[in-house]
């Protein structure tokens, strides 16, 4: 049976990827952020999964205006890196795991999650930046296959935090029921507090972010009970992305151990964080 070995929560700010792509990680602006990643990266490098299930949102690249799914899952053998308007990131394409994807779709649809399936998907910074946070120097190819799980966070109404947590619980069970010896890591991406547009642009709420970083480990139900309006008020219109961390948390078992975390302001217009949890098993 497949096993979930760790869960990573991380911001997916485009400029974090750009800093790596353009060799700026040692610049004074970026060094504190990347220094903070160090211990997590070293720990993960010793524990390469076979597949990473990456929960992320598309940012007006592969998902357009015509058809916006609430939840989606990639089912392809391969995913190209999206051109988001400024050329493709110089990182490897992403290899899929169509067998695991098909298993997850079957289990999740039967559990009452109304997923959209993507046989074709160009993955944007929401997915590739977390891969770079995990593995800064992939060389010719990423160290593991990937199953993308998409959450609509840019069109209102988004799924509730409670629904995201429920999806995570079902996703974890579905992964663990895959009848193959396989090590799986789960990524929850986006956040922390930020708002790009409007008079509240530039909003950072470190108190809320610190609370969230703590509670995601020990009290996910509390975070799942927050409303859409709570997230907007406290974390900003784009801080809403934090609901994707709850999908990751839901997929992990109840027994987890925090390996490392880091919090930094700012990465562009965003509070950026990383939190890494070892899954001790026995859900």
């Amino acid at each position: 049976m497949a096993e979930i070995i760790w869960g990573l929560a991380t911001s997916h700010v485009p400029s974090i990827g750009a800093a790596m792509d353009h060799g700026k990680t040692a610049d004074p602006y970026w060094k504190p952020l990347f220094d903070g990643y160090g211990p997590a990266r070293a720990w993960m490098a010793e524990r390469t999964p076979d597949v990473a299930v990456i929960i992320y949102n598309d940012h007006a690249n592969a998902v357009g205006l015509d058809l916006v799914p609430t939840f989606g899952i990639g089912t392809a053998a391969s995913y190209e890196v999206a051109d988001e308007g400024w050329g493709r990131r110089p990182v490897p394409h992403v290899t899929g795991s169509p067998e695991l994807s098909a298993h997850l779709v079957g289990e999740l649809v039967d559990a009452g999650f109304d997923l959209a399936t993507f046989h074709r998907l160009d993955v944007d910074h929401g997915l590739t930046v977390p891969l770079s946070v995990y593995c800064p120097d992939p060389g010719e190819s990423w160290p593991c296959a990937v199953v993308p799980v998409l959450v609509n966070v840019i069109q209102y109404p988004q799924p509730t935090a409670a629904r995201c947590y429920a999806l995570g619980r079902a996703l974890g069970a579905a992964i663990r029921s895959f009848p193959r010896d396989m090590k799986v890591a789960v990524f929850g991406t986006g956040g922390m507090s930020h708002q790009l547009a409007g008079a509240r642009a530039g909003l950072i709420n470190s108190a809320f972010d610190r609370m969230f970083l703590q509670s995601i480990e020990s009290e996910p139900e509390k975070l799942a009970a927050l409303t859409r309006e709570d997230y907007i008020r406290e974390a900003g219109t784009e801080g809403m992305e934090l609901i994707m961390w709850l999908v990751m948390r839901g997929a992990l078992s109840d027994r987890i151990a925090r390996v490392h975390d880091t919090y930094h302001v700012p990465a562009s217009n965003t509070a950026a964080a990383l939190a890494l949890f070892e899954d001790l098993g026995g859900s």
Partner: protein
Amino acid sequence: MTEARDNYLNDLTATRRGYAINRLCASLTDPDNRRRFTADEAAYCDAHGLSPEQKRAILDRDWTGMLDLGASIFYTFKLAVLDGKSMQHLGGVFTGMSAEEFTAALRAGGRRFG
């Protein structure tokens, strides 16, 4: 220029109103379209069915006006990038600051509300 509301919620009513302007910006993920847009912005707007107000907002780079007309920041940002403008520049526009002031506010820990 237009003054920004506190929050822009990209709800179904907004995305329906802003459909043409978002679609134009989405098309800029294609390098050929980026060249076409740059070659004749007004004609490109007309070909994408923009209303006169939407067209004016695009041509004038009225970033707040675009949002008021239903556009989403994730779409309009693609136009900003084509102009060589950063998200900090847009943040400054929305908050009545220069890009430098806005960047400094973020480096000082971000803007606080409530």
